[in-house]
Structures are given as C-alpha cells and as structure tokens.
C-alpha cells in the first residue's frame, strides 16, 4: 500500500466563462522515502493538484477523485475537522514565495511553535526546545536569536528554511514542495534542494517536488511525472525519462534544456498551453506536436502501459519497434 494514492483526480474552477478544468483525471502514487518530481509548464495544473490534496483551494474549486488516499485515510471522504488533524502534521507543504508565505505580524518562532502546540500538544517550553532543534536541523545559524526575528528581518533563503522547519516540525510522512527554489538565487537553490534531500534521507518521508526546472529534476528526483494542460502525460524513473522519453511533450521539454542546445538559438516549444476556450478536441498537445496527425486531433489518447511510461500518446516515441526499425 503506497503512502499517497490519487486516482482520477480532477479539479474544476467555476469561472465567469463557465467551468475550467485545471486538473484532468490525474493518477499519482508516492511511497515512503520516494522523491517524485512533477514537472510541466505554467498552467499545467501541477500546483493545483497538490493544493487540492491539501484542501487549500478556494471555494470556487470543485475537487473530484475516485481515490485520494493518504496513509490509509481517504481525504476526500473526511470532514474538514478530521482532515486538519492530518494536514500540517503528517502531510505538509512548502511554497514558492517564502517571503510572503510567513505572517509578517508574528515572529518566526511563534509561527513554528504554533504548529507544535496544536498538533502535538506541546507546552511552550517543549515547543521552544523543539523549534531550536528544528532550526539547527535546517541549518539556520544562531537559532536562539533567529526564533525571535520577524520574517521581514531575514533573507528569502532563511525564510524558506523557516518554512521547511515549520513543515517538518511534526515529522510529516509526506512533504510537498511547490517550486521551493524559484524565488531564490542559484547558490541558495542548491542549498535548499540539498537540505530537502538530506531531510528525506534522515526521516524517510516521501517528497513531492513541483518544479519546471529539469536541472532540479535530474539532480534530486527518483521518479518524474510530466504534466501538461492538467493531465499527466508521462511518468518514468528519472534516468529512463531523460534517456528515452515516450511522450513528444517530454521529448520537447528535454530538447528545450539550454545544456542540450547545439544551435545559437535556444530551442523552444512553439505555441502555449491551451486555456479555457481553445482546448483541443483530441490530444491536448496536438496543436504543438510535430508528430500529430488527424487521428491525434480528433481522438484523445488514453495512457499507455507502464513500459511506455503511461504516455498519453497515440504514437509514443522511443518504442522498441521504432528503435528496431
């Protein structure tokens, strides 16, 4: 039994122009100690699917799922009160903008102790000791003084460490990191990623890393789930994915890596992710796909088998037959 099991997860937003499907029939599994990277362009629904899992979407969102099982509990069938006992304790999340994700009116110490008091029932003294321990664990120098600081008195990197300390304070079984390094500069990015991986090694928690940075994926992830326009289009372990992507979108993403560029101009994927009003009838990637034919434009493809990375494609790349021919 995996730690997290999502089946047929969909999220629709009620907008003035009608319903908009941000997440479309996504299946995901994460095990203990697993590092799963979810990649995709902006608007591919990668954050929304995880926010839906956490129950953090606004009321305009309608979340449906056949299964949304975390650690043996089906979150979709729980009351908000019962769910709060899990969210923030066993299931934690950190966000893209560390500077605005912390409350400016309270010290970081207060914000970290708060979670400890509520979930673990610690008194002030125990919570303070644990907070100190956590700050040391995430590599914040001079932790005793820093606990008294307000978020605006610290750098973005330090604030992200505070966010991580807060997220892991109750020893979560799964940590979701939503583009944790996007707002930080490059040297700090590497440190934060190292920290996340080290914490995973030490605590054995599962880690979901949402990113659009393929470099980050290559360095940290074990498995990669590629999302496009709300759908999961491919999932493979990291090495095979980089070596032989099956979905044309994955292949195009990899070809767009600056490291792989051979030309003077950086390669790009022409076009943009379809929005609410230009959603294609068949395969969602067909308008931008160099291999698409009439069949692709008319009939939406179902996911292929595990040997083909569950690719949602009528004509997957790098298949054995293709390699043979």
């Amino acid at each position, binding site marked *: 039994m995996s730690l997290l099991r999502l089946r047929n997860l969909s999220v629709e937003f009620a907008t003035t122009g009608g319903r908009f499907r941000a997440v479309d029939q996504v299946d995901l599994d994460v095990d203990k100690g697993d590092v799963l990277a979810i990649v995709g362009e902006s608007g591919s629904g990668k954050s929304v699917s995880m926010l839906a899992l*956490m*129950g*953090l979407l606004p009321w305009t969102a309608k979340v449906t799922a056949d299964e949304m099982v975390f650690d043996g509990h089906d979150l979709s069938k729980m009351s908000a*009160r019962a769910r*709060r*006992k*899990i*969210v*923030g*304790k066993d299931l*934690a*999340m950190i*966000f893209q*903008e560390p500077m*605005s*994700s*912390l*409350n*400016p*009116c*309270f010290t970081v110490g207060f914000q970290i102790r*708060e*979670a400890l008091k*509520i*979930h673990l029932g610690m008194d002030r003294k125990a919570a303070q000791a644990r907070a100190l321990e956590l700050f040391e664990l995430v590599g914040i120098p001079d932790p005793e003084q820093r606990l008294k600081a*307000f978020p*605006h*008195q610290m750098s973005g990197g330090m604030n992200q460490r505070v*966010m991580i300390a*807060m*997220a892991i304070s109750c020893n979560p079984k799964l940590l979701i990191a939503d583009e944790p390094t996007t707002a930080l500069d490059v040297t700090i990015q590497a440190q934060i990623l190292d920290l996340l991986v080290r914490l995973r090694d030490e605590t054995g928690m599962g880690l979901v890393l949402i990113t659009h940075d393929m470099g980050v994926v290559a360095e940290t992830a074990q498995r990669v789930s590629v999302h496009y326009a709300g759908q999961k289009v491919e999932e493979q372990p990291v090495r095979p994915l980089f070596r032989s992507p099956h979905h044309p979108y994955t292949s195009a993403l990899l070809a767009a890596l600056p490291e792989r560029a051979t030309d003077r101009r950086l390669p790009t994927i022409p076009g943009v992710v379809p929005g609410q009003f230009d959603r294609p009838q068949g395969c969602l990637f067909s308008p931008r796909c160099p291999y698409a034919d009439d069949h692709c434009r008319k009939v939406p493809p179902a996911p292929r088998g595990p040997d083909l990375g569950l690719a949602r494609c009528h004509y997957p790349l790098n298949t054995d037959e293709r390699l043979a021919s």
Partner: protein
Amino acid sequence: MLRYVLSRFATFLPTFIGVTLISFAFIRVLPGDPIIVMAGERGMTQERYDELVVQFGFDRPILAQYWDYLTGVLQGDLGTSYVTKKPVWDEFFALFPATLELSICAMIFAVALGLPAGVIAAMNRGKLFDRTLMSTALVGYSMPIFWWALLLIIVFSGNLGWTPVSGRIDLLYYFDDVTGFMLIDSLLSGQDGAFTSAVRHLILPTIVLGTIPLAVIARQTRSAMLEVLGEDYIRTARAKGLPPGRINGMHALRNALIPVITVIGLSVGTLLAGAILTETIFSWPGIGKWMVDSIFRRDYPVVQGGLLLIAVMVMVVNLTVDLLYGLINPKIRKR
C-alpha cells in the same frame, strides 16, 4: 522606535499652527459682530461701542490680533469668554467629560459590534449574512443622524417608554462632580438607582452617535479581511492545519487591523462632529452644545479655543493610531 515616534511628532506642529489659523479666520469670516450680539436688543451708544472695540483689541491689524492669539495659545492661554467672562480652558474642561463619556461609549459600541460583524461577514462572503449586514451598514452610514435620533426617541422613549428623552441623569439624583463622568460619579455617590439612571440616559445617544462609525468599521473590517484572506501566509496557516477560528481571528485579523484602526482614528473626528448634533438633540451638556451656543453668540475666544482643542484631540488620536501601527505590524516600525 524612538525615531519613528519623533518623526510622527514632527508632522504634528505644522498641523497645529494651521488649525490655529483656520479657527481664528473661521469665526471672523462669519457675518455678525460680537459686541452688538452682546448688547442684545437694548443696543448701545457709539462711545461705548468704540470703547469695547479697543478693549477687545478689534481696532488693531488682523495679523497683530492673530499673533496675540497664537502667542497666548502657545503659553496655554485660550482667552476668556466674552459672555461668561470665564476662561475658555475652564469652561471646556467642565463640559468635556460629558462629551468624552458619550464618545467613548459610542466608540466602544461601534468597535464591539463592527469588528466581529466585519470578520463574520468576510468569512461568509456572498452569503445571506454578509449581504444583509453590508446593506444594513450602508443604510446606517447614509442615514441623517438627527432623523435617526428622532426616530429612536419616538419609538423607545415615546411609544415604548423604555429610555428617557434627554439629559444625563434623572433630576431625582443630585451629587457633586468628582470625575465629571456620570457613570463613575453616580456609582461613587452610592445613591440607589443613580447608576442605572445614568446608563439608561446614555443608551440612545450612544446608539445614535455610534451608528456611523459602526457602519464604517464593519465595512472596513470586512474589506480588509477579504484582502488579507487572499494572502500567501493565510494559505500557510491553513496548510499548518490550524482551525478556522485561529486563522481568521488571529493570523488574518492582526494584519487586517491596520486599515481598521486608521478608520477608527478618523472616526474620532466624525464622532466629535456628530456629538454636536447628538448633544443638541438629547440636551447633553457637552462641548458640542457649548460650541453651537458660542457660534450663535459670536463668542470668538470660545469658538477658537473649542475648535482648537477638538482639532488637537483628533490629532492626538491619529498620532496614537500611527504609533499603534508600529505595535501591530513590526514591519512598519522599522521604516
């Protein structure tokens, strides 16, 4: 923090000088002559009139008069009433506790109802409670104070007979001023039923005076809360699994308080202006009524001094508000 306080205080002085200038000019722009008003229907001889003009210093250039007034004010001398011949300062402090008592009660009423109402409305955005509350607030805000007062008097004093129509306390009770606050004095007097009577007299004026601030505070709290609830740190608080009461009442409200406190501070001005009407309607012996009477009598020193003191109070309240920002949001303290 000290630099913040000093920088706030530096803006205080020019405003103060400006207010003295305006209050000095305001009463002189009004048509009418205090000496003639003083003489009343009997009239007076030209000689006596000229004598009084010299006595009051009206023969001197207007700038010299202003200079006299300003130097007097800076030395703590607000002048003497033309009518009662008592120092303005003494008259003001004899009447001010009545106004202060009424204003404080009105403010407590407005904040105690407006703040929770705004928070609950924001939490139930778009639902029936929110809509009802916001339209009621709009009505309350737009209603003329005097009409609202008369309406309440007709219903609660006239038809139902629950509350007295005017004054601060029943004529049955008599005791000396100790603090000037009727609620406290009536308790100190130890007379049976005095306190209850004082409370009953306060109810309607409090509601009337507090209605507009109540509406403003409720609406401001709601919109500030809605803005804050969309912030990233609220998402973080929810991701921590905190209960909604704690998220709204603590994480959100503390951030939403800044604009709300601004409005509360500004309401003090509205409150003192509203007090003039409210006090007149309920025959409340405070500075509002005193100011109105003095304007009709063209009692220059009283009007000047009264306006100045009211303005200073509003300024002090807003200064306090500025200092409170720093306490609520540490980010502002640093700037």
